[in-house]
């Protein structure tokens, strides 16, 4: 059995069903020979549903301006990436990354039978479920279940600045949620008990306590960066993310959240501010990761529950929509445009667009191509990875 088959096998069969000795071996081979969790995945959630059409603007399309007479981004302000699309002016700081071919723009990321509720749609994204399917575990929880991270890691993942564990929710995963490292270390002193139990519930609690103790003993905020991080919540979150990545003990994934994208009214001002926070944060992130020599080992992905309705509403805003534009960045990203801009001439009955890239293909890219964890069996179907990574 070659390694890929072996891992596929490990991913599709519950490990408990295998003999204990074999289980350990599978886990061992998956971490050491297979999954390369030294490569960092950094997720940026654009919470509330960022408006993709004003993020990646189809400035050459008259339908766009017809749909958005008031909030459309004027052609002359668009940071042009091609003869048809360009970035919101707030994202201009990303232009050097684009020119350096380290920024991939994923157009029309969505899924079939889209749900327009914030809560339900982010759950679909976080669990990589079908639209009608309710799953409990996050997609990364399933991945770490199939191919565990090395035991020496501080944690599987660290969630910064959001109470919900999102893609790390559910059983078994070593996920730590914190607002900043120092505060976490202070709280972590309340976790004191380690141990085992045959009582399943107690065993789970003891394991979580042990996870907290492990993370607290491996994490600190001591690295002195030369990079200057932007002021404000998102800049702080990026700084915390970089401090965590700077620790000797690894974490496979870090998620930060930028919130406030639910722009039903007064969108232009709000989105301008949020996207410039995003751009400033990403630029600092690249600089800090380069300081650490980790930019080539980092893949940054943005995501959100949905995009927004192509037609503007009467409050200078947009209502809940479907597919949206997202970004992939990193030293090994093959920059460029991927997918296609949603057609504005063929909108659905509720005025929303179709999608070009299934979000699970983005996840498959991270699993198969970035970490080397076979995604089949983890995403509820076979999804083709995107060719956005250089060898």
């Amino acid at each position, binding site marked *: 059995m070659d390694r890929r088959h072996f891992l596929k096998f490990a991913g599709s069969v519950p490990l408990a069903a295998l003999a204990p000795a074999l289980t350990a071996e599978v886990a061992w081979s998956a971490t050491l020979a297979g999954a390369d969790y030294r490569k960092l995945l950094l997720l940026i959630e654009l919470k509330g549903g960022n408006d993709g059409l004003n993020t990646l603007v189809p400035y050459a399309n008259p339908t766009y301006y017809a749909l958005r007479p008031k909030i459309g981004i004027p052609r002359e302000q668009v940071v042009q990436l091609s003869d048809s699309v360009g970035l919101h002016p707030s994202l201009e700081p990303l232009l050097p990354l684009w020119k350096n071919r380290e920024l991939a723009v994923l157009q029309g990321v969505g899924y079939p039978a889209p749900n327009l*509720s914030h*809560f339900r749609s982010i759950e679909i994204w976080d669990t990589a479920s079908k639209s009608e399917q309710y799953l409990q575990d996050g997609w990364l929880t399933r991945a770490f279940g199939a191919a565990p991270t090395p035991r020496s890691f501080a944690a599987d993942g660290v969630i910064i600045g959001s109470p919900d564990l999102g893609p790390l929710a559910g059983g078994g995963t070593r996920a730590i*949620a914190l*607002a900043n490292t120092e505060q976490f270390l202070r709280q972590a002193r309340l976790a004191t008990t380690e141990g085992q139990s045959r009582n399943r*519930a107690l065993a789970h*609690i003891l394991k979580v306590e042990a996870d*907290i103790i492990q993370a607290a003993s491996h994490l600190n905020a001591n690295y002195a960066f030369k990079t200057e991080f932007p002021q404000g*919540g998102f800049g702080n979150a990026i700084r915390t993310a970089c401090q965590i990545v700077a620790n000797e003990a690894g974490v496979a994934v870090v998620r930060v*959240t930028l919130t406030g994208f639910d722009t039903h009214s007064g969108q232009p001002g709000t989105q301008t501010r949020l996207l410039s926070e995003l751009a400033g944060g990403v630029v600092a992130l690249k600089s800090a990761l380069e300081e650490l020599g980790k930019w080539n080992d980092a893949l940054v992905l943005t995501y959100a529950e949905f995009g927004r309705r192509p037609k503007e509403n009467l409050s200078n805003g947009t209502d809940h929509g479907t597919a949206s534009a997202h970004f992939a960045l990193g030293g090994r990203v093959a920059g460029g445009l991927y997918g296609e801009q949603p057609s504005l001439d063929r909108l659905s009955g509720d005025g929303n667009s179709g999608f070009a890239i299934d979000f699970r293909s983005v996840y498959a890219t991270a699993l198969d191509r970035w970490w080397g964890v076979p995604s089949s069996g983890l995403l509820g179907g076979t999804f083709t990875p995107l060719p956005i990574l250089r060898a």
Partner: protein
Amino acid sequence: MRLLTLPMRDAFAFAFIAVAMSLSPVLIPMASASTADLLTYDDARHLLNRAGFGATESEIQRAVGMTRERAARNLLDNARTSPVSAPPAWTAEAGALRYPRRGENATEAEKKMFQQEQIREGLELRGWWVGEMLSTPSPLTERMTLFWHNHFVSSQQKVKLAELMYRQNATLRANALGSFADLLHAIARDPAMVIYLDSAQNRKGSPNENFAREVMELFTLGEGHYTEQDIKEAARAFTGWSLDRQTGQFVFRRFIHDDGEKTVLGRTGKLDGDQVLDILLGEPATAEFVTRKLWREFVSPDPDETAIRRIAQRFRDSRYDIKVALYAIFTSDAFYASENRGVLVKSPIDLVVGTLRQFDMKPGEATPFAVAAAGMGQNLFAPPNVKGWPGQETWINASTLLARKQFLERLFRGDETSSRMLADANAQGTLTANAGTMGALPRQAIQAQGALDPEKARQIRFMRAMERGVSSVQFESGLWLTQFDASRGTRSRSGAASRLLLATAPQSVPDASSEPLALVRALVLDAAYQLK
């Protein structure tokens, strides 16, 4: 396939009466109790903590020595169907619902005002319910109301109107220990549910299947006992079940009801919604599905299928008398089995309400404790999705476990006034209250926009709530420990306290010579305290 000739409800009522007459002694204890059945201290503690919230030492002592049957009867016979505390004043306001003018006609200011009003009322409602849980003499009523809230899920996130959430809560409570059949019929036309599962959008010719799907998958049969075709047909039967936007009352809109022939689970007829519900109630799978869920709530995470079938049979035969099912559970050997002690994870409400009740703490206001429970992952009136809180081990992750321990540590810190947490909170930014996002806990407005990320804001909210709540309760650890002196026999005080507070052995046995407060703190911070 069977054609329906009798109106369904009459046919069922007839069948139920017949069955009830033949099986009337279900509630009467069959055999006289042997001494083995008399409740020990641990048995009494187990029953009262599972059926209520954090029983006190004296409540437990009163139940010691009862038969299982008598103790179960006591709980069930004395259960209330209405709250003891007065609900928020706005629930009594007569007249039309204060809807905003619909959609695009409303001005920004109107929308914002409406939103803020609903957030404020939603918070009051949470505080009122937690207050009721704290003060009710009938904790089983509140536990079952919460159980049904997590079964017939609606969330203020979508329903928006706090008033409708209150009315649904009252319906759940009134039927919490009544008939599941009546409750199902009532909830199907409950205005909050009509909004939450889109019944109001379900019209002849363009059916919305949301309610039809969930009523089968989550409320009655469970997955695997129906087909997609059953859902489509049932959805047609529920067309026209709608809401009067002025009064917020259920209305049946005949002109958008599809009165054609439908076939649901093999029964064909010009079925209406009530008839479909009766078809679902006629299926053994429904009684088993609900019994299994009761088992997970009260007994263990692993239902015993033989026992489930037996209890479900009695449950269905009694026209779904919830007391019959609970009586069977509370008198079963499985309920008292040693392997089922301490195997359930306390929900945040269990932890917060149970702790306050167990230590006989009487907070000045309950709202901060509702906020504290929300900070641990259980925001009342806002379950995460239609499946409800998944519960058990999913309650505990690194973030929620630390929130639980922070809460407990703060509660038992004694009179140290310099609070590190509040200092933390103040150091991290200035918050103002009472603005936020619909339905969620009020996400306080942040003065300098973007200065705080949501996790910090949440933590600060959580800490503030705790400070506000904790500062209003009095607790004298030394005095509290003296209550054990009369009954502890040869036990040490710490042994007696441990026996009251922990459902299973502590992970680290506290030093018997500890100061009273240190002793209590060690016990509540033990991992075993998270279990019931």
